[in-house]
Structures are given as C-alpha cells and as structure tokens.
C-alpha cells in the first residue's frame, strides 16, 4: 500500500510499487483527465506535475512518487490556462490537450512570460496530430500575458 499526495489530497493505492503511474491514475484513482498516449514517454499526452515539474506518468513508477506533490489536470490551479484554450478554440480531437496544458503550466511556473520560441521549445516533446499547434501556442502566449498582467495589478 502506497500513500500519495495528489491534487491536495492523500490517497492510498493498492497497485504494486513498479506499476507505471498512468495505470494507477486512470484505473485505480479514476482520474482519466491524464490521457494515455504512446506509453513510451514520447508523446506527452500523460504529462502531470510532480513537485511543480512536468513528468510523464507512463514512464514513472508509482513508488517514486511517494512523498511528492502530484497535480493532474483535474487539480490544476492555473485555470486561466484552460480559459485561454477555450478562448482560442485550441482543440480539434483534443486528446493531446490535457498533457499540453500541464506542460504549459510547468513552463509558466518557472518562466511566467515566455516568448513564442520558448513555448515552442517547452512543447517539443508534446505531439499534436490534428495540427492545432498555432492555436495552442497562441492560447499559452495569451494566458501568460493576461495572467502576468493580472498578477501585477494585484
């Protein structure tokens, strides 16, 4: 039995220690917002935040997360990012979006106002096959601008 801190809650999970976290998240905890893509750490669909950093749930053994703070799309505080994706209509099939929003959230935590090239670099290992890239880039750029402005005004 492992104890995990996820989205501000403590959860005990039955899964064996080496089980890739994606299966624990989606099957045992019922948090299906983290999408399963390649299962090889190549596509970014399953990106989560662990102690604020972007991590691939498919290549992370569950035991290594013990004592760390895990955030999934369901518990993401940066809802302004999601608002920006809606404003830009930045989705087609939408399967990659949750992982991309999590990658963007990790980026904005270390670099609150990234340039377009910095956003592109941060997303270099996130795949989108529908070709929604420009809307996604615009959504993240706008989200960072409006958010950093609102923070400054406060």
């Amino acid at each position: 039995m492992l104890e995990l801190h996820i989205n501000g809650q403590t959860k005990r999970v039955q899964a064996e220690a080496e089980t890739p976290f994606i299966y624990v998240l989606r099957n045992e905890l019922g948090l299906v917002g983290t999408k399963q893509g390649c299962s090889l750490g190549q596509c970014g669909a399953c990106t989560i935040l662990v102690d604020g950093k972007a991590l691939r749930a498919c290549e992370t053994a569950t035991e290594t997360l013990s004592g760390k703070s895990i955030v999934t799309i369901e518990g993401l505080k940066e809802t302004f990012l999601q608002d920006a994706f809606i404003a830009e209509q930045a989705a087609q099939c939408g399967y990659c979006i949750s992982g991309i929003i999590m990658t963007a959230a990790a980026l904005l935590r270390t670099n609150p106002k990234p340039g377009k090239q910095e956003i592109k670099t941060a997303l270099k290992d996130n795949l989108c096959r529908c070709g929604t890239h420009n809307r996604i880039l615009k959504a993240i750029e706008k989200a960072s601008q409006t958010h950093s402005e609102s923070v400054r005004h406060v």
Partner: protein
Amino acid sequence: MSDLAKHFPPILTKYPLVKSWLKINPDNTVSVFPGKVELGQGIRTALAQIVAEELELPLQQICISEVTTQDSPDEGYTAGSASLEQSGLALRLAAAQLRESLRRAAALRYETPLELIDLKDGKVWQNETFLCGYAELKDWLEPDETISGQIAPKSPNTHKLIGQATQRLDILAKVKGEASFLHDIRLPEMVHGRILRPTVYGAKLKSLDITGLELTGLIRLERQGNFVGLVCQEEYQAVKALEKLTQRATWETFELPHFANIHNHLRALVTEDVVVKEGNPEATLERSEKRLEASYTTPYQAHTSVAPSCAIALFKDEHLTVWTHSQGIYPLRRELAKLLNRPEDSLTLIHKEGPGCYGHNGADDVAADAALLALAVPGKPVRVLWSLEQELQHEPYSPAMMLDIKAGLAANGKVNVWDFTGLTDTHVGRPGGTGDRLRAGWERSGTQLKWPGPSEGGYRNAETLYNLGEAKVTTKFYQGPLRVSALRTLGAFANTFANESFMDELAYLAGSDPVAFRLEHLDDRRARAVIEIAAQKANWQAHASPSGQGLGIAFARYKNVKAYVAQIVKLTLNSETAEIQIEKVITVCDAGQIINPDGLKNQLEGGTVQGISRTLYEEVHFDWDGDGMHDWDAYRVIGFETIPEIETFLIDQPALPILGAGEASMPPMAAAIANALYDATGIRMRDLPITPERIKKRLETLSETELEKVIL
C-alpha cells in the same frame, strides 16, 4: 422549390421521417440524431448550429445524441468531407419541416391564423404574445411527419447562428480533462485485454509454447488459429502478461521489398488500368512547341493517431455491445456480424470519440479484437488497447504512389496537351460486411486480406480544373505488399502534388509567372478568385524564373467538386543542413456557405499542418524483414518547434450550397512547398518526403543546365 430542396439528400429517402432525426424533449430541448460521428472535426457543433438556426432555438437547447446502431440513422462512414453537405442538409430540411409543423400545430391549438404564429428564442408567439414552449405542442404534432423537402430552409440573410464563429460544444470537457474519449470509459467489472501480434511487419505466428507460463491476473488466454488474445483483471497485468507471452512466440518472417527502391518494385506489380479521362495526347505532343515530362513519387504513409486504438465489448444475454471510435458504426456492425457469424441485430455498436484518426486506422480492427475476447469472457466488459507499436505496424497505410506526367506547350505558351499516368494501390480497404477486412479475422482463419481492387480514391484529383488541351488521365493500380486503406484525402494528396508541381515546371518552361500561368488555364471564377486573393495576400511579385523569395503557390478544388483552396508557402532552405524552414502559409478557401467560420479555419489549419508533415517528414519504412516501425522515433511527424505561421482567409458564400472542406487544405500543400523550394533555390524536388538527405542527393544528380539555375 428552393435551391437547397432541389439537392434532396438521398439519405432522406431512407430515413424520411422527422422523428428519425429530431425529437422535442419535455424540457423544451431538442435531441438531434445524426449518423455522422465526431472525429475532432467539430461536426457536432456545426450540426447543432444548423438545427438551432432552423428551429429558432438557442444553441444551448440542442442535445446532439451519441451515434449508435440503436438510435441513429445509418449514414455509412464519416469520411470524404461529406458530413456538412449531406448530413447537414438532411438535418436542415428536417428542422425546417419541424419548424413549420410546430407553427401549424400552434395555429390549430390556439385557433389562430398560421401567418400570425412565430417561433423565436425557442418559444411560440402570436404576434408579440407568448403562447407556449415547443414541448407543449407535442400532442398536436403529426407523430410520423415526413420530411418533404418542400419547406424552404431559412433565408441566409435571416441567419443568426449560421455563419457565426461558434465555440465547440466539446471543448470545455476536453480542457478540463473529463472523460471525453472511449479510452476513458471505465465500466463496472471491466477487464483488460491485449492481443499477441508480431513486432515486425507481416510476420505470422509459427509457434507459441505456454508450458509453465504463469501470468498474474489472467482470466482467459484465447487462441483461435493465429489470433491470440489474453484477458486480465487489471490493465497493467495484461501489459506484463503480453510481454511474457510475446517472449514465448516465434514468428515466420514476411519478406518485404527493399524500401530504398520501393517505387520501382511497385511499378512491376500493376494489374489494372482505369482511364479517368479519354484522350489522344501522342499526336499533339509531337506537334507541341515545347515538351516536358516528369515523374513524382510519394511514400507509404501512416495515420499515426496521437494514441493507439481502443475498443470495449460486452457479451451478455446473447447480445454483443461494442464501444468503438470507428468512422462507421453500421458498416463495422455488418463486418462484425459476418466475421462472428451472428445476426446483425444481436450486435449494438456505440460510437465514442477517439484520438483524431484522419481515416481508416486501427479503430475497426481493435473492435474485432475486443469482440472476440468478449465472446470468450461473457458477462464482463473487455477493454482492448493496442500498443503504439501495434498501431504503427498494423494500421492500414496510405499507399505509395507514382505520378508520371508529359505535357506540351503551344506556340502561344499555353498547355495544348497533357498526359497523366498515376500508379497506386487501392485507397479503400474499409470493413463493410464481407467479413474479411479485419485483422483478427484473417489471423483466425489463416486467410489473406483479399485485394479490394481499384476505386475512386486512387484517381481523386488526378484530373484538374485547368484547360489543358488534349488531356488524358490514366490511373494504374498495383497490388502492393502492404495493407492499405483511406488516409485523409486518399490519392488527392499525391495526385495534386504531381499536377501542381508540374504546372509550376510548365510555367517556367513557358517563361510565365506561376500565378499568371495558372489563371491563363482556368475559367472557373471561384477557382480564379482563391488564387488571386492568395497572391494578393502574399504580395506575390510576378516572376518567370526562381526569384529567391521562396514563395510557392498551389491550388486544388478537393475532388473537383468540393471546397476550393489556394495556398502560398514562404520558406527558406538552410544551405548548411539542407533543412527547410517554412516561415508562413497563406490559405484561401471558398467552401460555399460557411456554418462555423472558426471551425472551418481550425480544420483548414489542421490540414495545412498535416500536409506540411506529410511533405517534409512522414514515410513508412521497413527493412526486408519488416523491422522498423516501433515508436515515434521511427515515424517522424511535425512538432511544435518547426510550426510556421499560418494565415487562413475564408470567402463566405451564404447563398450557395455548402462545400465539404474537412480535407481541402491538404492536397495543395506538398506542391506549394516544392514550388516554394524551387523559387528559393532552383532545386526541383519530385519525391516526398522532401528531407535534407533527399535535397543533398538531388543536388549531386543535377544536370549542368539545372545546376546553373541553383541559387544557394
């Protein structure tokens, strides 16, 4: 009769009743039952707009039902940029009929002259006096009202929703990470299946020794011929079990031709010719002032959804229910019924969204896998998910193509003869009721997939809209070594790459500007308009030899009857690495009446990006023994780092019929890039993908006259 009613959709002959398409609910919402499915293209949003518009309902009061074989009309496949043209028109006529029925019902109930009854904001009014909601008129409506096609849809100048950028109905759930996809469904007592398949292309199971094999959580190991699947209690148990099982299998290798030389190999396999357009080019070619010929090739390419295919099946009380992200639940039901030797009505298929598929990928195959395992484990829902490796190797590919064109120019510099010969495998291997189209089927029976034979997809856009004098178009079909089927635009991508590249080559041969040269050969006003606007937006400067600006244009009207698209690419070539960097793409589209401009733009942008990816990177490649396609490293696709700026311009034609546009921006993309590369460097690339290695190799093989034109 209105123009729209003149185009009475054939589907309404099969489903003529309003209630097959629309249902008024007690809470005054309206349920819509489309037969077309959401593939990420935004069809549900556009259909909701159409129905809300005709019924004078707020968009929030429209509920688009899921597509199932229980409740939905059989509209076949959601494919070919046909959904808005067909399903959209059917629903528009159904909603117009219901609107008039509601008015008549209100007139009857309130004993009021019909002309005083108005529908507005989802309510019924007499002049400005509120009468009732739609639901209250239910008993006054004819229950089996037929869609006559005689009720004119609303006039475009009264539209409030159609033509307005409308937020996608599905986006909130998707950005919040809700259970939007089939992959996210967790049914009570659900168990997990995986399928044993070779890790190299085409190999056959030779032996499987399971002596002493212990698999944790195993519920069932099912073997029928060479179909082997397992079912475990937990998903990760199934993953581990499959790894162990794979180690116990030996395979008989399927020998493949050398991919370095694949096109020459395929040329020898031609079995059937289709003459698309009759003509006698030979004599005119002899007489032409100038002559040119060129051959173009495109590789096998894959759909490569962002995630592998998935299905869930449940066999209970002699009934099989399958949740699938197939593009066609009715054709798949017919196929499964035949494969499983069960009556069609003992199967229910329910469509759930999957990752974007862009055509016929593994979605149908995995549904058969899940069905076979569910039959072996009655009473429990069995979820089967392919691995990425399985998706990359076992999905049907888009066939490699070869396009040979000869043409001549008359003394006036115009094309007077054109002889196009395409070579392709078939583009349609979809399931539909023959029982032999799904992988599990031929593994089980030891049979081979029967070659589906030539079909339209191979010569899609082989003909052009240009006036080309004595023109002949032939497409030869080969039976290739790889399983193939429909990938977004089918043959139109390769055919347009060749046609539009060759038009550029001819323009330069004629000493003409590529834009002017195209316009000289085009009568169609809408075709001319998209080209002219694109040139204007790109600030195109006329030039009759490579200008060094790196601008290239291409045009196609998808299927020659759907949306018109012209694209201009601006790019640079890194002379050190030979890498192409596309800086900007301008797309101009005339898709007739636009329902959701933002949805249309999203689709056009997506097709543009996918078109760039197919032009610069994508290529299925195997070693002789089928080794090669294991993960994303083996099949490069475009990523965020090289995404260019894309500007998309729409020409709205509110009074004209809708023209399908879901695929329209992909066909011109490859030629626009190749033409821009030529404009930038003087290097003409005729083989896709245009990789740095190919560019370097091409430079080595240029003739002296060609080398003189190179600007690097």
